[in-house]
């Protein structure tokens, strides 16, 4: 039964990927991408990489899907404001033979190179698993992935957290917040009660799950990125359900929160340098506590980053009243 499961997964993934690429209708492409993310998470489970499955389920499918829907809303609004009629969406290729041939050739070439790289690996090479296992006791955590991410290769993770901050700075630099969702029902003047009930139920659960994933990361798959993604999901739900929050002007705590993860991470590293150790070389006995401190701060920053990315740009400065162009025009 296991081979049947795996073959079904592979065939479905390839088919979904192709359909998502050739879809001329962007909304269809987005939905196919969401479905692709869900199946990809199942594939990671089958590859026995539950850490990546968690991240893929939360970020790859859930939050990226919501971000794409947000982008699509902005695109539609821009088209409407420009007075363009929506082009009739039809599936199929448009690039002609040359484009199709080049794409196919490139894909085949990259696949062949990847296959060759895997084939060229020395057979039966142990990898670094044994080395990690041997020093696991000193890492402060008992889960190997967390030990690598936050201790043995903490420098890489530090830079990744920096990349996230750069991403939101770049988005804020090029765009103003323009929330493409109407957060009130035009007739009732409020969020529909079903949505309020759902969000009131889900957000506390998501906060607990985010805390759980952060804590369990020390001993099992989980950690800051997965916890931050769940936190970001809760933030997106709140933005969609609290009309006045989606138009909140920029506040100092937003910038502080966005930078908190990187600041704490760097702060710990520099404090260790001042204490005469190397960057992020945790003293014995302190590793577990320092990792938890860093991960907690990074979780908050990732959650806030993903939530604010959903607004599509930098929140308006100062008084919110004159900038509420789209959400306060209901009668």
């Amino acid at each position: 039964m296991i081979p049947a499961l795996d073959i079904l997964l592979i065939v479905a993934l390839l088919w979904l990927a192709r359909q998502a690429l050739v879809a001329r209708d962007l909304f269809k492409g987005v939905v196919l991408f969401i479905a692709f993310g869900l199946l990809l998470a199942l594939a990671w489970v089958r590859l026995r990489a539950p850490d990546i499955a968690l991240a893929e389920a939360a970020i790859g499918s859930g939050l990226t899907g919501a971000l794409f829907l947000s982008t699509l809303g902005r695109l539609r609004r821009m088209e409407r404001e420009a007075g363009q009629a929506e082009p009739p969406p039809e599936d199929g290729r448009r690039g002609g033979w040359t484009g199709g041939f080049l794409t196919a050739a490139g894909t085949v070439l990259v696949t062949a190179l990847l296959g060759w790289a895997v084939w060229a690996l020395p057979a039966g090479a142990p990898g670094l698993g044994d080395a990690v296992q041997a020093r696991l006791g000193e890492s402060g955590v008992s889960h190997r992935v967390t030990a690598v991410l936050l201790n043995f290769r903490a420098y890489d993770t530090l830079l990744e957290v920096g990349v996230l901050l750069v991403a939101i700075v770049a988005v804020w630099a090029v765009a103003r917040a323009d929330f493409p969702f109407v957060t009130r029902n035009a007739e009732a003047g409020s969020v529909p009660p079903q949505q309020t009930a759902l969000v009131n139920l889900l957000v506390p659960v998501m906060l607990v799950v985010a805390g759980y994933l952060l804590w369990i990361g020390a001993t099992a798959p989980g950690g800051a990125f997965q916890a931050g993604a769940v936190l970001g999901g809760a933030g997106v739900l709140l933005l969609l359900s609290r009309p006045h929050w989606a138009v909140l002007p920029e506040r100092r705590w937003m910038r502080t929160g966005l930078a908190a993860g990187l600041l704490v991470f760097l702060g710990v590293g520099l404090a260790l340098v001042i204490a005469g150790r190397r960057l992020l070389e945790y003293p014995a006995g302190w590793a577990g506590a320092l990792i938890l401190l860093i991960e907690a701060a990074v979780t908050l920053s990732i959650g806030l980053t993903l939530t604010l990315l959903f607004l599509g740009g930098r929140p308006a400065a100062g008084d919110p009243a004159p900038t509420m162009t789209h959400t306060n025009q209901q009668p």
Partner: protein
Amino acid sequence: MSGFALGAAVLLLLTLVAGMVRVVRGPTAADRMLAAQLFGTTGVAVLLLLVLAGGGSVLLDVALVFALLAAVVGVAFARRGIAAPQPGRGGGHERE
């Protein structure tokens, strides 16, 4: 037990493939999105069956995240339906 659970998981994946046809053919946005939402639910079920088949209890956490994040996409879609009524088309039922 493990054989039965795996068989059921394969069956669920087959229903998922049937759902993909609906995502691709539509015709309305809601058809596509509801099928994708169904994938989330089916994914949770497949994960729980894999736990029964000895996949390890860590998959329960993956299933939890599946369920929570699928709701985010669902709510975002519902709000979008009201936000972007196409001229001459119904609110959440616009043809894509």
